[in-house]
């Protein structure tokens, strides 16, 4: 007991350096666990981008590509889906609902999505959550638009504002649809999905603004006013993609196959979950890099602790010699030093974990609001527990180095006590 008490008092006498090493370890552990939490949050948010949809269909292409342009609004469709094919699929006996997606125009860098009002009913994210309106409501008039949260906040839009849709996808459009301005009818709440960066309009509106266009340019001398357009048949020729919900999830592979083998047109149907996972596999390299960096930070902190123990070793030669003289075994001397390293690491790990959870508690709502990233405050996973355990063990082993050195010196010192 006295030996242990003296070891603690020895540590106490060096409290400042000890505290600094504990803090270094604590911060590194906090970083490591924090990165892990963000990683999980990002992966979860990513996987939660779209849910409740059983199949996404589009022109024949790879699953990732289809997912990228239809859900993430990145890149372009290689081809369209004809309205006829869409109607066919919608009437398939296993299909419960379909939502058409028509892409191709933009508004000041944000994509414009032409869709049906059902979109707001069926699009789900983060475990079946529906889109909610922060202001206003679904588009009713032909020239109504519903904007995502980012669109509204970046461009400072309120319900009732007039906006002009540009043709094509550049953030600066040389051609626009200024003759047919839209009114902001609703603003969506933040979701953390690409919906935030999308301007939603009715499918008919996409037809309407292109009705006097041909091959990507306005037909010279021919201009149809918005009022004239309202009277016309705005049934689209084609759409870009569609979300499909099934009556029973069990039918998903049967329907997928039917669509992939659709005889009239080359189409693709993908399962959003599978495609998301495939896509994450590509994006996931970055998260691995992050994890590697934070592991290196932990290693650095452990090195710092070993350095601290090494620098105090000289002044502790006295301690070693005295303990040896009263009959302490080398194992005891070794054990004391290694235990010290273990205790410091353990304290650092505990402190770091506590700091992380305290930090998460405060930061979580802010991160969710700003980035739509849902950081889970849950008990450490078994992976995290294992990691923490490995860190403590690494600390113990790292402490053995100085301990062995101290023991060697205590042998060489013999009866002389050096300071």
């Amino acid at each position, binding site marked *: 007991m*006295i030996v242990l008490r003296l070891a603690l*008092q020895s540590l106490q006498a060096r409290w400042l350096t000890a505290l600094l090493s504990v803090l270094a370890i604590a911060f590194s552990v906090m970083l490591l666990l924090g990165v892990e939490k963000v990683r999980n949050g990002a992966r979860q948010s990513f996987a939660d981008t779209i849910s409740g949809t059983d199949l996404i269909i589009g022109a024949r292409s790879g699953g990732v590509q289809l997912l990228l342009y239809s859900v993430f609004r990145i890149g372009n469709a290689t081809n369209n889906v004809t309205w006829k094919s869409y109607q066919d699929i919608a009437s398939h006996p296993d299909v419960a609902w379909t939502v058409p997606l028509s892409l191709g125009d933009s508004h000041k860098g944000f994509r414009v999505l032409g869709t049906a009002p059902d979109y707001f009913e069926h699009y789900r994210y983060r475990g079946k959550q529906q889109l909610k309106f922060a202001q206003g409501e679904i588009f009713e008039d032909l020239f109504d638009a519903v904007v995502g949260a980012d669109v509204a906040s970046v461009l400072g839009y309120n319900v009732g504002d007039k906006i002009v849709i540009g043709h094509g996808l550049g953030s600066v459009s040389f051609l626009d649809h200024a003759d047919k301005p839209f009114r902001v009818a609703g603003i969506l709440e933040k979701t953390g999905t690409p919906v935030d960066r999308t301007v939603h309009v009715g499918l008919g509106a996409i037809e309407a603004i292109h009705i006097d266009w041909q091959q990507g340019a306005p037909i010279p001398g021919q201009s149809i006013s918005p009022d004239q357009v309202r009277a016309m048949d705005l049934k689209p020729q084609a759409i870009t993609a569609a979300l499909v919900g099934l009556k029973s999830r069990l039918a998903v592979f049967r329907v997928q196959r039917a669509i992939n083998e659709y005889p009239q047109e080359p189409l693709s149907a993908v399962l959003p979950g599978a495609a998301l996972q495939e896509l994450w596999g590509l994006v996931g390299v970055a998260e691995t890099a992050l994890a590697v960096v934070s592991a290196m930070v932990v290693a650095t902190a452990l090195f710092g602790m070993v350095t601290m123990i090494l620098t105090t070793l000289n002044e502790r030669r006295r301690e070693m010699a*005295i303990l040896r003289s*009263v009959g*302490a075994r*080398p194992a005891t001397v070794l054990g004391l030093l290694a235990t010290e390293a273990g205790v410091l690491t353990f304290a650092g790990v505990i402190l770091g974990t506590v700091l992380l959870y305290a930090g998460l508690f405060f930061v979580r709502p802010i991160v969710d609001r700003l980035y739509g990233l849902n950081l889970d405050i849950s008990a450490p996973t078994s992976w995290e527990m294992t990691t923490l355990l490995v860190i403590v063990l690494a600390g113990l082993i790292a402490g053995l180095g100085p301990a062995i050195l101290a023991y060697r010196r205590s042998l060489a010192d*013999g009866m*002389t*006590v050096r300071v």
Partner: protein
Amino acid sequence: MKGVHFTWPGRPRFSLSVDRFSVGAGDRLLLLGPSGGGKSTLLSLLAGIVTPQRGNIDILATDITKLSGPARDRFRAEHFGIIFQMFNLLPYGTVIDNVLLPLSFSKQRRKNVERTSSQAQEAARLLTRLGLPSDEVANHRAASLSVGQQQRVAAARALIGGPEIIIADEPTSSLDRGRQKEFLRLLFGDIAKAGATLIMVSHDETLAENFTHVVRLEDFAKMERGA
């Protein structure tokens, strides 16, 4: 000690050879020799902190050169009290913890103490006899004591639990003349009372009158020192 030859590990040029050296039980032996003359090395050998490459060291009918490392450590804990020249105490520990430290390594000495009183009482008794009013200093940090007081605490630590052999390596060299006398008087009193053997080294011949035996290191040991 018979036919002992020792070289410090890593310092092959420095060696100490002792043909024959013995101390009787209950003796108070003063070992004289110049500074750097191998006195501390001899004490390290006796205490079993280092082992010779050749030869035997019989202490209390045990050849400690035949013991394993841990067994030698235990042997030292049971039978030796050691006082260094200076820096005897763990500076951040309390006086009482410093005195009681050997008891956590030796069962026999713990038993010896507990036969008559509690550990704390015995420590207090020793400190008081050595001229340190224990109720005043027992819970002070050792570093707050003067050098002379620290040496007395070290003596109390060496004596606690009644080990058979006390080894002192120039314990008075950091004290002034008056305090040296006082310290030795108290130390001798306690050692005589316990019936222990004292082996003390010094380069100061004026201390000789207090001892039963006085030997010079160069008379029985040969030291070689390379360039």
